[in-house]
């Protein structure tokens, strides 16, 4: 197993999410566990960030200081495949 990319996860607060955010992220994690190390968003030395929002309002991006790293925001369950694709592609780089 090679060096895994470090990806931070930042959630919105989840006031009224349109889907189960945690279930979606658990699916991503189980699928990419060998390639990516998933951490909290405020950890040091991250290679990228996933912003997990329950709706298009995208509150996870709020109060986030500007980071010069890969950042992917999701707002709906239908975006699962795109997220996995982007993370897989990101790791290959």
């Amino acid at each position, binding site marked *: 197993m090679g060096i895994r990319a470090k990806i931070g*996860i930042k*959630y919105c*607060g989840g*006031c*009224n999410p349109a889907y189960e955010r945690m279930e979606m992220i658990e699916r991503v994690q189980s699928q990419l566990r060998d390639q990516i190390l998933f951490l909290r968003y405020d950890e040091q030395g991250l290679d990228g960030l996933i912003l997990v929002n329950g709706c298009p309002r995208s509150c996870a991006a709020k109060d986030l200081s500007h980071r010069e790293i890969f950042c992917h925001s999701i707002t709906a369950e239908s975006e699962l495949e795109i997220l996995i694709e982007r993370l897989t592609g990101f790791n290959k780089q």
Partner: protein
Amino acid sequence: MNEVTDPPSPKISEEKRMKRIVTKEDYIQSLKDLHHVVYYNGKRVEDVTEHPALRPHINSAALTYELALRPEHEELMTAASHLTGRKINRFTHIHQSIDDLIKKVQMLRLIAHETGSCFQRCVGFDALNAVYMTAYDIDQKYKTDYFERFKRYLLHVQESNVMVVGGMTDPKGDRSLPPGKQADPDLFTHVVERRADGIIIRGAKAHMTGAVNSHEILIMPTQAMREEEKDYALACALPLNAPGVILIFGRQTNEERKCEEGFDAGNPQFGLVGGEALIIFEDVFVPWERVFLCGEYDLSGLLVERFATLHRQNYGGCKGGVSDVLIGASALAAEFQGTAGASHIKEKLAEMVHLAETIYAGSVACSAMGYKTPSGAYYPDPLLANTTKHNVTRHIYEIARLAHDISGGIVATMPFQGDLENSEVGRYVKKYLAGVQGIPVEARMKILRLIENMSGGTALVESMHGAGSPQTQKVMYGRLGNLEQKKHWAKRLVKID
């Protein structure tokens, strides 16, 4: 009132440094350690955490601790203390911005999705904010030092993460008489003795949500007071295990079902509304350090109005969230019995969504239109907050009515869980309560019991009177509705003087 100086001061256990409550387990252990005097149905409860009728309310309040530890909710459940900069539970936070006011409402909706019931901790949250901003104003007028005292108290609350119950509603006796004219002066909580080290208070607070599973109470006056009612103009904090404090838990609809610990309780894990109690103060000592209003009668009305506004702000959040669960349950009931495709069912579900989002919109609106008070704390728009709560007194009943309409009479006539499980009649219950093929009868019964739990009796009354009865909101319309300006606009339009 007797004037006495320098008597021996009773020690109250608040002074023992509390370990910070972080987890659900910490919270439950802290309640076991409290040893406060609680009565349920005429019997003293030795350990509230082990009592089947109280445990669901404890589970519900415990979520306010548990969810704050989850990364997927910390954005709403936590805040940075303006006193220390440290991360704290939002229920101990003083609103520092419009964003804080909105996050409060979002947080309430989120927790209600998890509990389907009241989680109680907002009352103390609102009391902390109301006393904070009013203590500042009292100091400005009277050169007292309540604000600094209160900040020290707030620091204790934030650091220990205790659950505080806000205590406003006095029993009030004969409503046509003011506090000082009551046959029994204790029908309004008041100061009976001022001493060098503190005050002695007597009276009671009624309908106190979450009281038996809170650690402390923050008392406020129940209404505006006049000069002759100075002793009733009182705000102070004390631990609920202080000598002289007695809590009597209120009876709820179908509460005996909680003792069965099955699904007939409807929401076995989190119960029904908040678990209200009558709190009695039988000559309770409060040190000056915990007194934040004492005799400044002309500002008691402002404190009441602020607490009421902050509490009314909430109702579209928590009741909006609870309504989301009831709407979901109603949709499932329809699916389980094969009526989900009927146009009138779809229309009723749409109407329920409309009503729930209307009350939520009110809570968000009064938050968005909030403003900064002289203390620095932010405050929701009071007219909009009152309107929101007033809508709740109507819309929750209508949502419940539609839930009953969709579910059918079975909500009121369904056999016991025990019948379903009985070796003789269980097969008949399964046969004749069957709905759509493939749906277990137990699942259908559970959903119907949840609807029953959430839509009747105590749950509805709480929507009516919690945070103030509808008439109190109408009084605020009279004060804040600005009728003169409205008349002016009408006159200007038709060019009359």
